[in-house]
């Protein structure tokens, strides 16, 4: 059916073109022989082809353009004719003898154009006559094309200011009047198009109408091109008349297109000065009109205008552009209760962009916008609509982008309220955007109040939403989020310890609400920034001896450590014992630096408890024990007794590890606990040797076990490692470590390696080789070291 229709249309078009060409051929012949009568006859016949109703606007346009070209030639002929002495007035009458109206009016417009050029009558009279006579075409398509022809031939003949057609009787207001009238009539025809024809083809018709819209819009363009349309005339005549037509036509398509046209065609300066009038029209539009787009366009243009030059900004203030736009949006939303949420938010988003551009200094305006938005969204609950949430994100991102500074956004009291309308995932996205903005700009957040409000904003990331936690969340995404929160925590900083402590307390308060999944991510940064504060306090107390930290109760390291202790406890409660242990050790070390023995001891105790009670995985135990040993080795605050207890425990733990090689390594690591280089009171050579010997025993046992289980003795790696430890302590001057012992160990290794059951292990070979090279090297060094090594035979 449809295909047939288009095929037929092609046929009709072809027939129309053929008829047109034939008649234009005869017309040309008449023109060549200066036969006016025949020229009129054939041109009328040619134009009769345009009387067809069988073509869609698209095809009709094709036909029209061909006729248009021919009419240009006819117009030239008419001009020559008047030069030859034919009276233009007679000609003007003559063409009106044509019996069919459409050809008659095309001819009339053509002659009319010559008539105006001849200046035998005032341009305005001719124009008025033409635009009146065109009323005879009530068929929308034909009427639109005819009037567009009129507009085309007349646009260079309007009595504009400075135009040759301007005269005493012809003023620019006549030109404006003419164009306005033509515009009004065209719009009426255009609007009427939708009501004609069967309703089942309505969709097709709307499409066709859309194709024709530029014919109507062209008039507005012509208006904007008239020099004489200054601001005053625009304000007093043009805009009210155009708007009247737009509002009264009550047609969705037309209203949308024409409002957009007005905005695009006329200068921004005019819009600014006529904002009242322009905005007043919006609430009167049909409720189905997509006002948000049009209004957004307007605000965008005004924003760009404001951005174009600083000189125009006072104008904006003068006309109170912001409050007018703000009011208008309110009214539009009121007038269109069915407007989708996305539309509402888009409007506010545009307004916000506008105010950010035009009044960057007026934060209260931005806040007002957000506030109004909140008011309008309230009662709607979380917004599910994708488009709407997208718009809200845009709305919220705008201030961040503009100010590059979250601090400004934090001042917007309504900002978090708007965020509340977002659904959980989007809220998180927005929070991430905020954090990224902070990171990008390296903004330091320096007061606890700001931290408080910032957490309010990003609470989607900080804790689970009111409902059940979102299980479907992708693990990687979650990590990404929480890592960004962790990064954010690093950005909180204040030089003033007191304030910094407040910040820490605030952060702590918030992150503790985060639940077991989040704490492992958020606690460490908090711990480290607290420890940073501790060190800072420590530094201060050292420089100001007379003011020991004990006085200022609120910010003493002790107090901070208490806080940390509690925090770590929460962490151990959430199945992250390894992390808790690591943090305990960190704290212990910090306490060590602050010379707070009891605190450090307490942390260590906790670490041990964690080790004993929570860490059961053998691999984790290995890691933990090495951490403990490492940390403990660096501790210097402990008294002998405490230290003994702790080292004893550590050695004990080491020997109880599951795998022999692990045991061995842990035990020889323990040897360091008894030999701290910088502290002479912590050098116990005997116990060092004890540890090493024990390690050797374990290594031996390991080898035997391997032999029994697999039939091969396994690697000698452990022995080489122990040898290295021997060499270390030998070099450090531990009297218990003797050349003989080293010599014995080397031989043992050699034997093992040559035994039949040994498994070849290239890395062990290499390790041994380098160890040997080291001994050689030390020997050749000479001096005391050389002497010391001398007795060792390799």
């Amino acid at each position, binding site marked *: 059916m449809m295909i047939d229709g288009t095929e037929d249309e092609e046929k009709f078009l072809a027939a129309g073109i053929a008829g047109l060409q034939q008649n234009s051929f005869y017309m040309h012949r008449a023109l060549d022989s200066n036969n006016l009568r025949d020229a009129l006859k054939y041109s009328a016949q040619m134009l009769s082809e345009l*009387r067809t109703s069988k073509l869609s606007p698209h095809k009709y346009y094709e036909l029209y353009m061909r006729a248009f070209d021919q009419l240009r030639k006819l117009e030239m002929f008419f001009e020559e004719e008047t030069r030859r002495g034919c009276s233009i007035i007679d000609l003007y*009458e003559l063409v*009106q*003898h044509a*019996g*069919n*109206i*459409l050809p*008659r009016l095309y001819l009339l417009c053509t002659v009319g154009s010559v008539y105006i050029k001849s200046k035998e009558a005032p341009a305005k009279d001719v124009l008025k006559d033409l635009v*009146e*006579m065109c*009323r*005879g*075409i*009530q*068929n*929308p398509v*034909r*009427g639109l094309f005819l009037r567009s022809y009129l507009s085309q031939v007349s646009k260079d003949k309007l009595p504009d200011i400075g135009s040759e057609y301007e005269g005493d009787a012809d003023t620019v207001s006549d030109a404006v009047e003419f164009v306005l009238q033509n515009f009004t009539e065209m719009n*009426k025809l255009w609007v*009427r198009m939708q009501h*004609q024809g069967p309703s089942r083809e309505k969709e097709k018709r709307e499409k066709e109408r859309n194709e024709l819209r530029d014919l109507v819009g062209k008039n507005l363009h012509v208006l904007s091109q008239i020099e004489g349309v200054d601001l005053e005339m625009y304000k007093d005549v043009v805009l009210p008349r155009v708007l009247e037509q737009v509002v009264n036509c009550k047609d969705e398509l037309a209203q949308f297109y024409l409002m957009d046209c007005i905005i695009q065609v006329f200068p921004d300066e005019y819009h600014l000065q006529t904002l009242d009038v322009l905005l007043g029209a919006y609430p009167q539009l049909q409720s189905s009109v997509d006002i948000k787009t049009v209004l957004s366009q307007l605000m965008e243009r005004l924003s760009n205008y404001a951005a174009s030059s600083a000189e125009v900004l006072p104008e904006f203030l003068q006309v109170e552009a912001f409050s007018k736009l703000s009011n208008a949006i309110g009214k539009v939303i009121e007038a269109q209760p069915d407007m989708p949420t996305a539309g509402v938010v888009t409007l506010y988003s545009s307004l916000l962009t506008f105010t950010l551009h035009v009044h960057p200094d007026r934060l209260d305006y931005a806040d007002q916008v957000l506030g109004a938005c909140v008011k309008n969204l309230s009662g709607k609950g979380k917004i599910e609509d994708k488009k709407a949430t997208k718009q809200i994100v845009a709305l919220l991102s705008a201030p961040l982008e503009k100010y590059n500074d979250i601090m400004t956004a934090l001042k917007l009291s309504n900002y978090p309220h708007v965020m509340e309308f977002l659904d959980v995932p989007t809220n998180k996205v927005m929070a991430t955007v905020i954090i990224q903005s902070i990171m990008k700009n390296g903004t330091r957040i320096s007061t606890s109040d700001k931290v408080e409000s910032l957490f309010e904003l990003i609470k989607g990331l900080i804790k689970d939403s009111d409902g059940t936690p979102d299980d479907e969340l992708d693990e990687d995404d979650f990590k990404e989020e929480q890592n960004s929160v962790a990064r954010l925590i690093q950005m909180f900083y204040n030089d003033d310890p007191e304030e910094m402590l407040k910040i820490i307390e605030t952060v702590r308060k918030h992150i503790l609400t985060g639940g077991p999944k989040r704490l492992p991510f958020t606690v460490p940064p908090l711990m480290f920034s607290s420890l940073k504060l501790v060190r800072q306090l420590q530094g201060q107390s050292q420089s100001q001896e007379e003011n020991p930290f004990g006085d200022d109760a609120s910010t003493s390291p002790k107090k901070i450590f208490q806080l940390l202790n509690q925090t770590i406890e929460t962490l151990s409660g959430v199945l992250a014992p390894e992390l808790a242990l690591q943090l305990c050790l960190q704290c212990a070390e910090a306490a060590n630096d602050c010379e707070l023995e009891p605190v450090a001891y307490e942390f260590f105790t906790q670490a041990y408890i964690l080790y004993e009670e929570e860490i059961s995985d053998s691999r984790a135990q290995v890691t933990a024990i090495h951490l403990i040993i490492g940390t403990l080795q660096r501790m210097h605050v402990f008294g002998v007794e405490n230290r003994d207890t702790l080292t004893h425990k550590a050695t004990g733990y080491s020997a109880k590890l599951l795998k022999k090689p692990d045991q061995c390594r842990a035990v020889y690591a323990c040897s360091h606990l008894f030999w701290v280089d910088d502290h002479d009171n912590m050098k116990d050579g005997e116990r060092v040797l004890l540890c090493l010997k024990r390690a050797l025993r374990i290594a031996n046992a390991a080898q035997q076990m391997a032999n029994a289980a697999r039939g091969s003795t396994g690697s000698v790696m452990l022995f080489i490692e122990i040898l290295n430890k021997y060499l270390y302590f030998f070099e450090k001057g531990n009297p218990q470590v003797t050349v003989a012992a080293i010599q014995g160990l080397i031989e043992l290794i050699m034997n093992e390696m040559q035994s039949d059951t040994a498994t070849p292990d290239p890395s062990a070979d290499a390790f041994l080789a380098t160890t040997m090279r080291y001994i050689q090297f030390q020997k050749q060094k000479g001096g005391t070291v050389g002497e010391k090594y001398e007795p060792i035979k390799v």
Partner: protein
Amino acid sequence: MNIIAGAFKPPCKISISLTHPTTRKQVRVKKENDQTVMVPLFQSQENIVGEVSIEPARGKKVEHNGVKIELLGQIELYFDRGSFYDFTSLVRELEVPGNLYERKTYPFEFSTVEMPHESYNGINVRLRYVLKVTISRNFVNNIVEHMDFVVHNYIPAPSINNSIKMEVGIEDCLHIEFEYSKSKYHLKDVVIGKIYFLLVRIKLKNMELEIRRRESTGSGTNTYVETETLAKFELMDGVPVRGESIPVRLFLNPYELTPTYHNINNKFSVKYFLNLVFVDEEDRRYFKQQEIIVYRLLEDS
């Protein structure tokens, strides 16, 4: 053949000529055989002056009972063929009975002739003016020669010329108000007006203005009425909506109108009407007819 033809050839040649034929306006008139000839144009109260020359065929004498010239105004009704009504008949004797031997010229003059009616060539009726020269003869047919001329009578513009304004309609379908600026138009006038649509419920396709001529001849039961549409002038293309007003501007010049003739000699009348026709999408026609008076304007110059 030649001899026989010669026998029936008129024994003399008569020609009628008017003085100042070059300055007199001539009008084109269509003859029965569709050929057009130019004939002189007169108006009432003019003097019709000229001369008649009679030239007997060589070597023949014409014996006659007198020569006269008549000016006749005749109404000819086609349906009773051959019956002429002379409403004007003037005679001038040119020659007493006698013989004519050679060419002779007779001047004649009809002064301030009353010619109240205009020449008219209609469908069923013809009104014509003719100069007729008759040479009366005994026993044989009279020798007769005609010369047609045309009479147009001009009148000044009427002092009262009301507009035609009317609201018409079909209930609940179509209500319009139309207005023509005048009720009386001269032949080169323009009909100016507008059609205002008050209610449109039918799907109109277009609107035309027709000029119709109604010629009625005879009287009583023998009245014949012929209506001709002289002009079809499209006023509007498409469907108007309520409140739309469509301009009318129709130049009468291109159409061959005559003035309105009212009961000419009780024989015939010619009336003109403006017929406003609406055509709907199913080609049904709705119309409203209004009589207009057409007159021949006496131009001031």
